[in-house]
C-alpha cells in the first residue's frame, strides 16, 4: 500500500449522544494521534501512542498543538494490523458527544496529518483486507453507491450545486492567472506573452480572499448541519429548566431530550426560526468544594467553551446583581469572547411591580460593571405566556445571519471534505503568492498553483490539465 495519510471520520451518527467514537485508520494512525494526544493513564504505562499494544486503551487529553488548548478528555484504543476493523493500524477515540467537540477533534487530526475518509472507506478497506466474507461484497458496493447517491439527494444537490458554481467562479479566474503563468513557461519565445508579476499577484490575492471567505462559511454551514449550540447558564432556580421545557414545546421539529450520561448537562434539539438549535442546560458556574458538584461545574465550563450563544438567566431574587455575583464572575472570565444574551425569568413568584423594572436594573448593573458592550441582548422571558420567545428567535436568527456576513453569496460549506479541499486550496494559494513575491522561479509557483487547482477540481470535477490547456488556447494567440 502507499504511504497514504490515515483517514478519519466520526463512526457514530451525528446528533446528540453522550459519547461519540472517532475512528482513524492507516499505517500512520498512531503517529498522527500522538501529535495531539497526551496520555494520563494507560495500560502497561505506555508513554506514547506508539508504545501502546493492540487492544489496549489510554486515557488522556486531546489538545490543539497549534495553541495548546485542551479540546476534550478522551479514551483512545489502539488496534494493530491486521487485528482491526479495517485490517490496518487503527485508532478509536471515545470522546464526549457534543458536536463541536467532535468537529474540533477531527479538525486537529486533519491538521496533523490525517485526511477525511471517503464515503464507505472503512468498510471498503475492511473488505479489501479480507475482513468480511464474500457474501458481504455486494452489500458493501451498495453501501458505497448509496453513499454517493445520498450526496445527490435533493437538498444536498442544491447545496452542492451552488457550491460547485461558486468554486468554479473562483477557479475560473484562477485559471486565467494560471494560464498566464503557464503561457510564459510554454511559449517563452513569444515576446507578447503576459509577464506582469505584480498584476498576477494582485489577482491571486483577490481569489485568495474569496477562498478564505468561503472557508469561513464552514462555521455557518456547521450550524446548519450540527445545530447552533445555545448554552443556558445561571444560578439554580433561575428558570433554565422552564425555558428548556418551553423550547421543547416551541417547535414540532424537536428530536430528542436526553440527559447527558457523562456530564451533568441536558441537551435538547430543535429549530428556532428555521435555525437548528442545540440547547444545553448546565449546572451553575460557581466555586464549590463539593467534589461531585465540582465535576458538574467543570463540565459546564466545557459546554460554555463550545457555545455559539450563551444565555444567562437571571434569578428573580436579584442575587445576580450583587457585587462579585456569579454573573459578574462569568462575564469577566469564562464568557470571554462569546456572544451573550441576558434573560430575566418572569417567574410566577415575582412581584409584578418588581418585574416591570427588573430588566432595567439588570441592564444598568451590567453597564456599571462595564460589560454592556459584551451583551448582545436583554429580554424578559415567561415560561407561562411564552413572552420573550419571539425575541429569542429573532436574536438567534440575527446571530446566524451575522456569521455569514461579509460573504458574497449564500453558499455555505457544510461538508468537511469540501472544507478540507478549500482549506488546502487556500493554503497552497497563499504559498504561491509568497513564492511569486520572493521572486522565486515560475516552475515552483506553477507547481503550487496546480495543487490549488487540483483541490478545487476535486469539488468541481474539473481535470486541471485539460482546463488549463483549453484556457491557454482560448486566451493567447500563439503558433508556428
Amino acid at each position, binding site marked *: *500500500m*502507499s*504511504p*497514504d495519510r490515515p483517514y478519519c471520520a466520526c463512526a457514530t451518527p451525528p446528533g446528540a449522544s453522550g459519547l461519540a467514537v472517532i475512528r482513524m485508520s492507516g499505517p500512520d494512525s498512531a503517529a498522527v494521534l500522538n501529535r495531539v494526544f497526551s496520555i494520563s493513564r494507560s495500560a502497561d504505562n505506555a508513554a506514547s501512542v506508539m508504545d501502546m499494544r493492540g487492544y489496549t486503551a489510554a486515557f488522556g487529553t486531546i489538545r490543539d498543538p497549534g495553541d495548546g488548548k485542551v479540546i476534550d478528555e478522551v479514551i483512545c484504543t489502539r488496534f494493530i494490523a491486521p487485528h482491526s476493523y479495517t485490517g490496518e493500524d487503527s485508532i478509536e477515540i471515545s470522546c464526549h458527544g457534543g458536536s463541536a467537540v467532535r468537529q474540533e477533534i477531527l479538525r486537529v487530526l486533519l491538521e496533523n496529518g490525517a485526511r477525511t475518509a*471517503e*464515503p*464507505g*472507506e472503512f468498510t*471498503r478497506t475492511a*473488505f*479489501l483486507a*479480507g475482513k468480511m466474507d*464474500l457474501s458481504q*461484497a*455486494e452489500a*458493501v*458496493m*451498495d453501501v*458505497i*453507491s448509496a*453513499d*454517493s447517491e445520498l450526496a445527490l439527494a435533493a437538498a444536498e444537490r442544491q447545496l452542492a450545486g451552488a457550491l460547485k458554481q461558486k468554486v468554479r467562479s473562483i477557479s475560473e479566474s484562477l485559471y486565467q492567472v494560471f494560464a498566464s503563468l*503557464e503561457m*510564459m*513557461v*510554454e*511559449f*517563452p*519565445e*513569444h*515576446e*507578447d506573452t503576459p509577464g506582469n508579476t505584480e498584476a498576477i499577484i494582485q489577482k491571486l490575492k483577490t481569489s485568495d480572499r474569496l477562498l478564505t471567505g468561503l472557508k469561513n462559511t464552514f462555521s455557518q454551514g456547521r450550524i446548519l448541519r450540527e445545530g447552533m449550540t445555545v448554552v443556558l447558564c445561571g444560578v439554580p432556580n433561575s428558570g433554565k429548566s422552564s425555558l428548556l421545557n418551553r423550547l421543547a414545546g416551541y417547535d414540532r421539529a424537536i428530536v430528542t431530550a436526553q440527559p447527558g450520561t457523562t456530564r451533568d448537562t441536558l441537551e435538547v434539539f430543535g429549530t428556532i426560526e428555521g435555525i437548528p438549535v442545540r440547547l444545553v442546560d448546565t449546572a451553575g458556574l460557581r466555586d464549590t468544594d463539593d467534589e461531585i458538584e465540582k465535576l458538574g461545574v467543570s463540565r459546564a465550563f466545557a459546554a460554555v467553551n463550545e457555545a455559539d450563544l450563551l444565555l444567562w438567566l437571571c434569578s428573580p431574587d436579584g442575587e445576580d446583581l450583587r457585587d462579585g455575583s456569579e454573573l459578574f464572575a462569568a462575564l469577566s472570565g469564562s464568557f470571554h469572547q462569546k456572544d451573550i444574551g441576558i434573560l430575566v425569568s418572569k417567574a410566577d413568584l415575582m412581584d409584578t411591580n418588581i418585574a416591570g423594572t427588573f430588566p432595567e436594573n439588570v441592564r444598568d448593573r451590567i453597564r456599571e460593571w462595564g460589560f454592556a458592550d459584551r451583551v448582545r441582548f436583554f429580554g424578559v422571558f415567561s415560561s407561562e405566556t411564552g413572552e420573550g420567545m419571539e425575541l429569542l428567535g429573532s436574536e438567534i436568527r440575527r446571530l446566524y445571519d451575522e456569521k455569514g456576513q461579509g460573504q458574497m453569496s449564500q453558499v455555505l460549506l457544510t461538508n468537511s471534505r469540501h472544507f478540507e479541499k478549500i482549506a488546502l486550496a487556500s493554503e497552497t494559494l497563499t504559498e504561491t503568492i509568497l513564492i511569486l513575491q*520572493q*521572486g*522565486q*522561479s*515560475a*516552475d*515552483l509557483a*506553477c*507547481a*503550487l498553483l*496546480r*495543487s490549488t487547482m487540483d483541490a478545487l477540481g476535486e469539488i468541481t*470535477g474539473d*481535470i*486541471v*490539465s*485539460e482546463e*488549463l*490547456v483549453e484556457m*491557454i*488556447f482560448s486566451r493567447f*494567440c*500563439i*503558433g*508556428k
Partner: protein
Amino acid sequence: MTTISQALKREFAYEAGNYDVLVVGAGHAGCEAALAAARQGLSTILFSLNLDSLANMPCNPSIGGTAKGQLVREIDALGGQMGIVADLTAIQMRMLNRSKGPAVFSPRAQIDRRKYSGMMKEILEKEPNLFIRQGEITEILCENDDGKMTVSGAMTRTGAVYSASSVIVCSGTYMESRVIMGEVVYESGPDGLFPSHGLSGSLAAAGIPLQRFKTGTPVRLNARYVDFSKMEKQEGETDIPPFSFAHEMAGIRPPQNQTPCWTIWTTPRTREVVNGNLDRSPLYSGVIEGTGPRYCPSIEDKFVKFKDKERHQVFVEPMGSDTCEMYLQGMSTSMPEEVQVQIVQSMPGLEHAHIQRSAYAIEYDCIDPTSMFPSLESRHISGLFTAGQINGSSGYEEAAAQGLMAGINAAKYVQGKPPLILDRSEAYIGVLIDDLVTKGTSEPYRMMTSRAEYRLFLRQDNADERLTEYGHQLGLISDGRYALFLSKKNAVIAEEKRLRATYLPPSDKMKALMESLGSTPPPSGISLAELLKRPELHYADLASVDPDRKPLEESVVFAVEVNIKYEGYMRLEQDRINKFKTLEHRSLPQDLPYPEVTGLRLEARQKLAAHRPVSIGQASRISGVSPSDIAVLLVYLEARRRREGSL
C-alpha cells in the same frame, strides 16, 4: 481484411520476404521504430515512399522547445536516435526558460534539415538486422481466427507481399492527403511528395475508427532578398548541454559558430491584407473539413480569433548551413498564393521577399487513438502498432517518442514478452501516450509541459536518471554508456551526502560572503545543503566557504543543486506520485463484464465498457467515471479474485 493467401492471388503479386517487424513510413516515428526493433535483435524492414525524404522536416526546421525538448532527452535516455542526430546537425542551440526554474528548462535547436535526413539514412543503412526499402504500402494483411484478427504482413503497390509477425504503421500526414491553397485543392503529401492511397481504407475495413485532421505550414523565402537590418537578432547559446546524454557525458557542447534567427512583427498592412481576403481562405469558405490545431493557428485565424490584437510576432529561421532558404515561423496560412505574396511583403525587411515555397494547409486521415492499448498496439488487430501523426499527434518529437515505444513494444510482442509502458509520473512520453489512448484527441495533439502533472520530476536534466535503466535492460543503451550513467548517478549521491553532512560554523568570512550575495548570515552553524536551499544562493557562490569541494561535471552540480533546492516541493510531488501509482498498478482484466457490476452508475458502465481501460488508474482518467465508481470497481475486483481463488 485481406489475408496473405488472398493477397498472393492478386494480379502480379509475389512473395517478397519474411520479417519479424515491418515498419510503414520512414519519418521521425518510423526511423525510431525500425531502429528500436532492429537493435533488439529482430529482423526489420522499413518502407518509405521516397528514400531521399527519410526523417524529413516538412515544417519547422527545428527540434525541441518546451516539452518537446524534454521528449528528445527522454528518447535519448531510452536509447533512441533523434537527440544524437539533432546534436550533430544543429546550426543553433538554445535553452528556453532559463529564468523560470529547472523544472521547465527546455532545449531547442535549429537543424540543418538536409544533413539530418542524410545522416539518419546512413545510420539506418548501417544498422544490422535493418533493411530499408522504397515502396508504397497499400494494404495491411491480417489473418482472421474466429473473429480474432492478427496482423500477418503488408502489400506494396507493385504487388510485393511481405509477411511479418508485427507491423508498425507510421504514415504521418500522407494517408489520403490533400493540399489546399486558397481555392486550389489537389491530392498530395507534404513537401510536394506523393500521398498514400488505400492504406487508411484497409485500416477502416478492420474496424479501426478514422478521423480527419488538418495542419499547415508557412512559406519559405530566399535570404538574399531579406533585409535583416530591420529585424531583431536572436543568437544561439554555447554553455548548455546537448540533447544526447552520451554527448553530454563525453563533454560535447553546442558548436561555437551558430547561425542566428530573427524576429519581426506583422504590420497594420498585414492585417488589412488578411482581413480583405478572408473570403478566399479555405478555412472560412468551408473547403477545409479537417480539424486544425489550436496551438498552431494560421495567420488568418490569428487575426479573426484575436481581433483586438493588432500585431503578431514572426520568426525568421535558417533551414540549413548550405542553403539560403529561410522559414517564416508564425506565418502558417492556407490563403491563395497571390495573397501570400502580399502578406509576406507587408512585413519589415520582407518588402522585396522572394517566396521559394508556398504555404499550404494539408488534410489527412488518422486513427482515433483510443482504439489502441497503452502499448500502442491496436485493440482491433493483434500485432499491429501505430505511431506518430497517424495517432492524431503533431510534431517530430511526439512522433519519434511514439515510434520508439512502438518499436520497443512490437519487439516485445514478437518475443512474447509484456510491453513496456511508461506512466505519467515517469516521462513526458507516458503523458503523451496516456493522453492519446485514454482521452483521445479532437485536434493534432502537441506536447505541452502544462499537460504533465508531475513537472518538477519530469525535467530535461534528469531524463537519464528516469529512463536509462529501461534503455539498458532493452539493450538500446550500451554497457559502456550505462557505466558512465552510473558513475554520474553515484557522483550526485556522494556530493549531496557531503553537502548535507558538512557543517560550517559562523565566521567573518561567512558573514562577508552572505552579505555580498544579499543573504542573511546564519546565526549559528549551518550545513552547506541548508545554505543551498536559500533561493538567492547557488552552488558556485559557496566555493569560498567550501574548501573540500572537488571539481565535478556540470551535469552533476546541476542535479545536486536541483535535488537540494527543490527537496521539499519534490517530496510533496512524490506523495502525489505514490498515490497515483497505487491506482496505476491495479490492472483491470479486459474481459470485465461492466454491465453486470452492481453499484456502477449507468454512465460509468457505458464509458468503461467502451474504453476497456487496462488499469484502475486509466479508468479514473476517463471522463464520466467518478471516484465512487472507482471504489466500486476495487471492491468488485477483490470479490472476483476471491471467487476465482476459491474455485
